[in-house]
């Protein structure tokens, strides 16, 4: 029996297959703009919020539609 915190022993003849590429210390999340309040991040977030607002507005204003 194993659980999720136990790494099972490999069969003696097994050979691990590894994903292709070199390991990196900088993750996808870390490579992005490190300044939390940067204009870039704000611009990104603003468009997401505009999208959400437009979706909400469309939902509210579609009650008179009959298809």
């Amino acid at each position, binding site marked *: 029996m194993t659980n999720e915190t136990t790494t099972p022993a490999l069969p003696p003849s097994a050979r691990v297959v590894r994903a*292709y*590429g070199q390991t*990196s210390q900088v993750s996808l*999340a*870390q*490579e992005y*703009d490190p300044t939390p309040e940067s204009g870039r991040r704000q611009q*990104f977030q603003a468009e997401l919020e505009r999208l*959400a607002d437009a979706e909400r507005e469309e939902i509210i204003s579609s009650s008179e539609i*009959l298809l």
Partner: protein
Amino acid sequence: LDVLSYSGWSPSDIDLGFVLPLNTGGDGWAELRDYYLPAAPGLAREEQPGALAFDRVLEVAKLGKARSAFVEWRYIDIDFRSEHSFFYSTTFRRYPSVCHRIHFFTEPLEDDLGNLGDIADSYLGYSVIRPLPTSPVGRTVLAPPPHLESAILTTVEDHVHLNGIPLTAHGVPFVSQDGQYLRCSHSCLWSASYHSHLRRRSPRHLPRDVREAALGGEVVGRQTPHEGLSVAQLLSALHNLGFSGGRVPLPRSKEASAQSKTTSLPSTFARYANSGIPTVVFNQFHSWLVVGYYFSDPAVPGHDTTCLIVHDDVQGPYLESLGREDYLNPWHVVGDERRQWRAAIPALPSKVYITAERAEWLGRERLTFVSEKLGSEGSVNCCTSIPGGQLRFRTYVTTGAQFKETVAGRLPDELASFYRTVHLPRYVWVVEAIDEALAIQGEPCVVGEALIDATAHHLAGADSPALLARNVGGNAKATSLDHRQTLEVVVNDLSPYPSGLPGPVCPHLE
């Protein structure tokens, strides 16, 4: 033809139907039209119920250079049987429960169908004709007109049999509404569902299933005969039919559309058409499907030159938006509150939680950021060498497995191996960075891509784990989700490579 006459609609059990020569000098097209929908005295053709869709079906077959048709009598159509069982069998007036089916071929068909097997390759598709005098066009899968061959279309393959001969139709499923049991939204839902069934082997839903699926949400009128669906019912139906129906509001003016960073009207439909997904669009009183697009000016592929291809259950299949003077041209009805295009509802697979607009916004932000960063560090590659602001993006959803299949052959071995060993979900959004100048010339033009987890949080931030992998001109990176392990590959001198989608990046009419 008296549709409702028992012997008229099914005149014989031993006569299977009839062959009709077309485009051969005779007047076969008019004969076929008049057989089902002769001119109504005192009514213009466009005012005659059911005529527009029926005439368009014939026109599409004619444009496809059909040279013969076989009208198959006594065809048992599972979709009409559903309508018949739950509605037409309940009326005092008797309706036949069997249909006709018209098959179109680009080669002449012998009178005894003796050469059917020989001309199977010339099959253009079929149209089921229902015994409903005012709305005859039932399930239809017909090849698009040849001039649209180079457009992006959400085409699927449908296999049928005629006298034991297998035939294959390539097209986008279409059905017209009957105004009683099925309304326009039902038609859209049925078409989207049948499309999904053929493309992704999702369950087959019949008209009754579609109607039942639409009983959730806000019911705003009588349901039988049907007075129309609310948007809430439409969305509920999509959910119940196994779709994830995201609602994308559309800009209210052409200028707002052109300036929008994420929801320009043509781009919205193009993203889903690229993905092979038909999109429901509605105004205040009607809905229809956008099933493809092309650019009317190949030298200037963009907002104003995008021509959308639509299936309108009233007017027929494969209609082109540009130049029209009705509600199917989004720019013709700007400012007209009733007819203006309100929102798009793509029939996304159930496990696509994040919409194309959000996925593209996320992907383009990362690709742009990394490209600028690499450029500022002196790295020159096919992506960073494109001046800031001139990168274009092309977005589509595909399966992780399909994406991995397509990297072989179009990407260098190192990059292909990298992508093929990355863990990917069932569906991923692919945001491709495009060198537009190359795209216009029809050359390989992809200089990078971002892969977005389609099941990611739909409000994912710019540095969220929704981004699974990215490649910027040969500089590729992926971070795993469980152990947060990052792998990278750097391929120097990467040349622009083909898109992961078949067909042209800038589709235009040949």
